[in-house]
């Protein structure tokens, strides 16, 4: 029964489960990965963890060189231990044809236990290096390496097959004095290793060895988790929303048939059960197909995610049966939730509805609809207020997302209140009989107009909201940065993670130190005398910092740190204790004539507006991913509801033809009706999203103490609206052609 109307719910559930399945599979595949160089080591010992919150992704507190040496010595005495390797990563980037090789930014000390030579010999001298064979430098040749001190020529003694460089042990000990991981080769008893290490570190074996992965990778994965979770939530919401609007639609189209069933003996409960059963069946069928598509999409997407930097290198799809199983279960659930309101309404249909010639909407707004709409609006406003007072950025994102969802629901439910006025305004320029036809059909079935406009509303609202949120906050940060820059020219990294000393010998360095076991980002400023520091809260007293080489020093605090900075240290101290520290930028009084490799000169405004920092780029990639998901789902849903309503309108179009309208006039009427629906949905969607955006802009303004203008990428939004329009006009005009006869 009601077979023709299953399509709408089917499409909604299919989309929802496909996206949920893909994101769940991708989510569960994201797990820590053991770095390749440790693959052959059975036991790893890691230095003590920092006291930060887990989501700060702080590297553990390093052992100073002496401590690491002594611990390594103790470990070598454990029976079964063949060798102990001190892991010493540092910044090193080869230069090829005058440009730093992108992504090739790390060097290690050579060890026969962890490295495998393809040819040549291990590095022995001070300027010896083993490089990736793919660089194309022959053994015996010279390669220019960038390190934190600047470019220098190195002699290639051998080749490996990974994108990293390897230097001799003493050189590595100079470039990376602190140690965070000791690798144990051989087959020692883990318990014996633990008793030797004691409280000096953490002993990791088996799968737990993956915990030594770089914290930056863990952070990338965590950001990926946030985005994929948001995508899943959005997909689930869109699925329920679309299933709800299409099944509400199906019920209003089937009034007469349901009335007849009631007349021949179906109880209200049976009518409800019939709709629920149908929803379950459709949900299960759509779910099966959706999960299949989603898993397929996950495989295709995995590579793209790594490419876009959302997941760390080496990320692959892994199989956990529960992920597709959960997505499969979500399908029928989405269908049931979506059908609930419509089923309730259907069971209220009286037996005499069968006699009503046409669906005449008595009241477009029922009391329940008012209540639900106002409740959703209140929830949206509450979330907007919560957004406006949120101090934490991740809270801000969550509240504003929830707020936008609630406002979209509210706008859809309350749309019938404003639709008559909107129709009047929008159709004012359209004169003549066609305008009248379109106006009357939209006004006599305000609810139908509202439910056909719903998917457009959802799509446009999310496009405006998601892209607007990102651009507004990016613009706010850029404005803040611009206000603090006072320089004729700015030297910025070009293809490198930061500026080395040869490019900017006095520029402020960025590093991370530990204060009382907690990792704290710190700057190294050339303006600070030795033995002093600027610290955020106190501005006086003393502070003991542990540098990245594990050495501690007590400094006199001579003043407060500048805004958004926690700790400023003398540049010389930072350089001495962190040989890999780089400078994010250097502010120059005049444009320099020449620059070293890995640096470029821009003017102050360009520097402030730059959004190509790694995080901004990631966030924008996520945004476009979310937008693609919601706009794709939205376009299909728009086509779906319009095709459903067109079937109902075919009778009217035929009557039009019989009363003398030309085929062109009928097609134009259909196109006008579709365009009207898209216009209504877009206006309501934009209005809703702007409301939510103003909430988050206020929050940002409160945080930064500076006015934050709402920025929306209108060309992008225009593309989304145009896409909806094309799909809608096609979906409306195609069935109208069928009415030719």
């Amino acid at each position, binding site marked *: *029964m*009601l*077979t*023709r109307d299953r399509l709408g719910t089917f499409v909604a559930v299919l989309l929802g489960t496909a996206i949920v399945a893909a994101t769940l599979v991708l989510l569960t595949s994201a797990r820590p990965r053991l770095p390749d160089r440790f693959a052959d080591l059975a036991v790893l010992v890691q230095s003590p963890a920092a006291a930060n919150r887990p989501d700060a992704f702080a590297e553990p507190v390093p052992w100073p060189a002496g401590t690491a040496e002594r611990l390594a010595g103790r470990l070598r005495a454990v029976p079964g231990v063949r060798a102990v390797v001190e892991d010493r990563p540092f910044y090193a980037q080869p230069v090829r044809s005058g440009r730093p090789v992108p992504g090739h930014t790390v060097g290690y000390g050579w060890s026969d236990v962890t490295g495998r030579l393809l040819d040549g010999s291990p590095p022995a001298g001070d300027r010896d290096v083993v490089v990736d064979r793919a660089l194309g430098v022959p053994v015996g040749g010279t390669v220019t390496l960038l390190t934190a001190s600047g470019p220098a020529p190195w002699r290639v003694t051998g080749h490996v097959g990974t994108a990293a460089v390897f230097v001799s042990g003493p050189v590595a000990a100079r470039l990376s004095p602190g140690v965070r991981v000791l690798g144990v080769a051989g087959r020692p008893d883990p318990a014996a290793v633990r008793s030797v290490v004691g409280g000096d570190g953490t002993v990791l074996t088996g799968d737990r060895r993956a915990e030594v992965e770089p914290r930056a990778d863990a952070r990338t994965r965590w950001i990926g988790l946030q985005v994929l979770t948001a995508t899943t939530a959005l997909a689930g919401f869109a699925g329920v929303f679309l299933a709800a609007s299409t099944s509400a639609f199906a019920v209003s189209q089937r009034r*007469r*048939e349901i009335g*007849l*069933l*009631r*007349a*021949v*003996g*179906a*109880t*209200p*409960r*049976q009518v409800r059960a019939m709709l629920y059963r149908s929803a379950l069946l459709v949900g299960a069928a759509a779910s099966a197909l959706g999960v299949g598509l989603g898993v397929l999409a996950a495989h295709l997407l995995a590579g793209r995610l790594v490419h876009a930097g959302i997941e760390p290198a080496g990320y692959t799809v892994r199989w956990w049966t529960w992920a597709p199983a959960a997505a499969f279960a979500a399908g029928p659930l989405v269908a049931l939730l979506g059908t609930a309101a419509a089923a309730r309404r259907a069971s209220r249909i*009286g*037996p*005499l509805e*069968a*006699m009503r010639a046409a669906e005449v909407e008595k009241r477009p707004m029922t009391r329940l609809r008012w209540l639900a709409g106002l409740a959703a609006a209140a929830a949206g406003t509450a979330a907007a207020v919560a957004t406006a007072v949120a101090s934490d950025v991740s809270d801000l994102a969550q509240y504003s997302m929830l707020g936008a969802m609630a406002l979209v629901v509210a706008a859809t439910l309350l749309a019938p209140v404003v639709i008559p006025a909107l129709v009047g305004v929008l159709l004012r320029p359209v004169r003549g009989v066609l305008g009248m036809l379109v106006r009357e059909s939209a006004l006599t079935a305000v609810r139908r107009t509202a439910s056909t406009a719903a998917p457009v509303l959802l799509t446009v609202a999310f496009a405006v909201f998601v892209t607007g949120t990102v651009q507004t906050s990016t613009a706010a940060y850029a404005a803040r940065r611009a206000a603090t820059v006072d320089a004729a020219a700015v030297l910025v990294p070009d293809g490198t993670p930061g500026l080395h000393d040869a490019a900017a010998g006095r520029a402020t360095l960025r590093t991370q130190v530990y204060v009382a076991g907690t990792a704290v980002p710190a700057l190294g400023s050339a303006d600070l005398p030795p033995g002093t520091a600027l610290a955020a809260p106190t501005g006086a007293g003393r502070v003991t910092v542990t540098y990245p080489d594990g050495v501690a020093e007590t400094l006199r605090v001579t003043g407060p740190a500048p805004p958004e900075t926690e700790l400023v240290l003398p540049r010389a101290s930072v350089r001495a204790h962190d040989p890999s520290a780089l400078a994010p930028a250097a502010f120059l009084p005049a444009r320099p004539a020449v620059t070293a490799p890995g640096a470029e000169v821009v003017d102050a405004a360009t520097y402030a507006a730059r959004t190509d920092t790694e995080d901004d780029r990631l966030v924008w990639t996520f945004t476009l991913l979310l937008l693609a998901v919601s706009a794709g789902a939205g376009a299909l849903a728009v086509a779906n509801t319009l095709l459903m309503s067109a079937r109902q309108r075919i009778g009217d179009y035929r009557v039009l033809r019989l009363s003398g309208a030309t085929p062109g006039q009928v097609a134009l009427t259909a196109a006008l009706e579709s365009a009207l629906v898209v216009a209504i949905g877009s206006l309501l969607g934009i209005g809703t999203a702007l409301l939510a955006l103003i909430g988050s802009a206020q929050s940002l303004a409160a945080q930064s103490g500076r006015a934050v203008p709402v920025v929306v990428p209108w060309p992008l939004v225009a593309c989304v609206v145009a896409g909806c329009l094309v799909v809608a006009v096609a979906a409306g005009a195609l069935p109208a052609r069928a009415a030719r006869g």
Partner: protein
Amino acid sequence: MTVTLRDVRMIYGTGTRQVRALDDVTVDFPPGAFHAVMGPSGSGKSTLLHCAAGLERPTAGAVSVGGTDLGGLNETALTRLRRDRIGFVFQAFNLVSSLSAAQNVALPLRLAGHRPTPERVAGALDAVGLADRAGHRPSELSGGQQQRVAIARALITAPAVVFADEPTGALDNRSSRQVLHLLRRLADEHRQTIVMVTHDPVAAAVADRVLMLADGRLVDEVADLDAVAIAARVTELELAC
């Protein structure tokens, strides 16, 4: 089974658009009899049938079927009573368009949780002369054929009371005679109560008793008259209005 209406009033709409479709109608339909309801268009015949069959709740007054007061039943109980004891043939739009004739006929039994045998469904269709159309959908049937499928559906549960709103309105003479004989037999042989609305004096003449309705009021009641006499009464009534 007796259907009783006591002071039944039905008012549609409010204010100036208020219509009094039934105006304090009191009437009994005793079992085993064939009743016809006649009257000018808009006189409240369909409304009377809907109220008596529990399809619509009257504004005021009481309706009881076999001693059960319909006003005291909730929607589900009312539906069950309708399904088990009452058959109804609407004036139009009788069939579920996505189901075949046979499926439409089987619908009340299926909704009651029974699984009718194909023979039983075929028998019901055969009784209205449509044995060969079981697999057709409503859109493939003529108006009269659709009406007969609806009659077959009303009869398949062997209801104690059958209400039919102009069941012969769209039929030719022969089919119309068939349907009338069918209804007559139900009253005579199975002691079912038949209430039929009609504009056709010939159809009304088959009934035991003819009720005349005008402006929502019962204005006349005649028994055992022939078609000519009934036609004369109707003309009189229409002139009086």
